[in-house]
């Protein structure tokens, strides 16, 4: 096996990151790149998978007693169940409103686009920071049709977004979510799946830019997303600004 072709520079970096030989600065750069470059992120993941079997050689060591109760105390009060519950509540109310306002107009789209129901445990909710919400309406034609419904949870620094597009639509393309704050270039936040809800945690620097009035937008891009550092390359199909309900 002496004739293996060299790894491309990008893949070599991904492999080095997965192996863990990068220093603190390079490591932070690689992590940041994973967040904005899905191809690089996939390379890192693939290398982590390749190397992971070595973990099997590490002997287990019983964790100290009492550690579990420390962990349990650290679990955020607003856990995943609550978060998804909040989104579902918001989504249902938004869809109800839409139904009243726009009955008869493109209702078929919504009917086929019922997002998968998220089943969560019912829990007592302690309201904490207030959510910012945005309805991303079509930027083409009628401005009333919401295509995506989003909420930003300041406690978890995460955006929860539901795509109302029919599941499986346009599989050759990806939907990329953007944050547009002030005069900054749009910042890519991640990819959405038609018909699904997704929780997208934000990096601290991006979370700092989310405020009432900031815009969320979705563009349709080739797989891998926009390669333009200044923003979307494909058409923007939906946009809306964040506000408190």
């Amino acid at each position: 096996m002496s004739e293996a072709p060299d790894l491309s520079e990008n893949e070599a970096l991904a492999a080095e990151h997965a192996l863990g030989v990068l220093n603190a600065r390079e490591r932070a750069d690689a992590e940041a790149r994973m967040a904005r470059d899905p191809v690089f992120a996939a390379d890192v993941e693939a290398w982590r998978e390749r190397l992971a079997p070595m973990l099997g050689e590490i002997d287990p060591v019983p964790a100290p007693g009492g550690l579990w109760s420390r962990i349990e105390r650290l679990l955020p009060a607003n856990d995943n169940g609550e978060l998804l519950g909040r989104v579902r509540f918001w989504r249902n109310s938004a869809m109800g409103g839409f139904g009243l306002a726009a009955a008869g107009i493109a209702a078929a789209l919504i009917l086929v686009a019922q997002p998968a129901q998220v089943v969560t445990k019912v829990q007592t909710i302690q309201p904490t920071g207030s959510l910012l919400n945005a309805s991303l309406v079509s930027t083409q034609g009628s401005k009333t049709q919401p295509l995506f419904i989003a909420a930003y949870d300041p406690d978890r620094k995460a955006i929860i977004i539901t795509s109302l597009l029919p599941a499986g639509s346009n599989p050759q393309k990806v939907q990329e979510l953007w944050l547009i704050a002030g005069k900054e270039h749009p910042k890519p936040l991640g990819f959405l799946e038609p018909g699904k809800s997704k929780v997208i945690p934000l990096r601290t620097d991006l979370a700092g830019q989310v405020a009432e009035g900031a815009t969320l937008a979705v563009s349709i891009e080739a797989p891998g997303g926009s390669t333009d550092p200044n923003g979307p390359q494909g058409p923007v199909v939906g946009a809306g600004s964040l506000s408190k309900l």
Partner: protein
Amino acid sequence: MAAAVTTSDILTPLMTRIAAGERDALRQLYEATSAKLFGVCLRILSDREESEDVLQDVYVTIWRRADRFDSGRASVMTWVSTIARNRAIDRLRARGPMAYAEPVDELEIADGSDSAETLLSAADDRNRLSHCLGELDDRTEKVIRTAFFEGITYEALARRMDAPLGTVKSWIRRGLAKLKGCLQS
């Protein structure tokens, strides 16, 4: 690597419950995996107290990110072990640029006979990777294993091996390219 996935992954249903916010499911995952993950942290950090801190952080991370777990891509054990390893390396880096652990012990080559690995469902993968690592020259195998198990930087490896940085880097890059070729074949 699809082979990391087995139908017998008994931990997978726990992940769905954790993603739905069930604390009891996280506790069950903790019971099933904490010894393994503590071993991973200790191996990299060689410090019990720091390893405890990291382990705590790892389970809070799992709690927050359980919705991102994709059973089609990795087994639960691989997924959580990778989080533990990454967090331990982050902590190691935070010690400072020149921090590097002294070798804990001579790198042992697993004899493949230990029974503690029943939880790691990817035994075939492990054998295949072991085989491919064994195909590398001894020095390259050793440097890749040291890098993996101790999570130390190129700089620290070069110092440890008493070799120039660029040389160590090229050993590793060539070794990884060969490894990939071997795993694909």
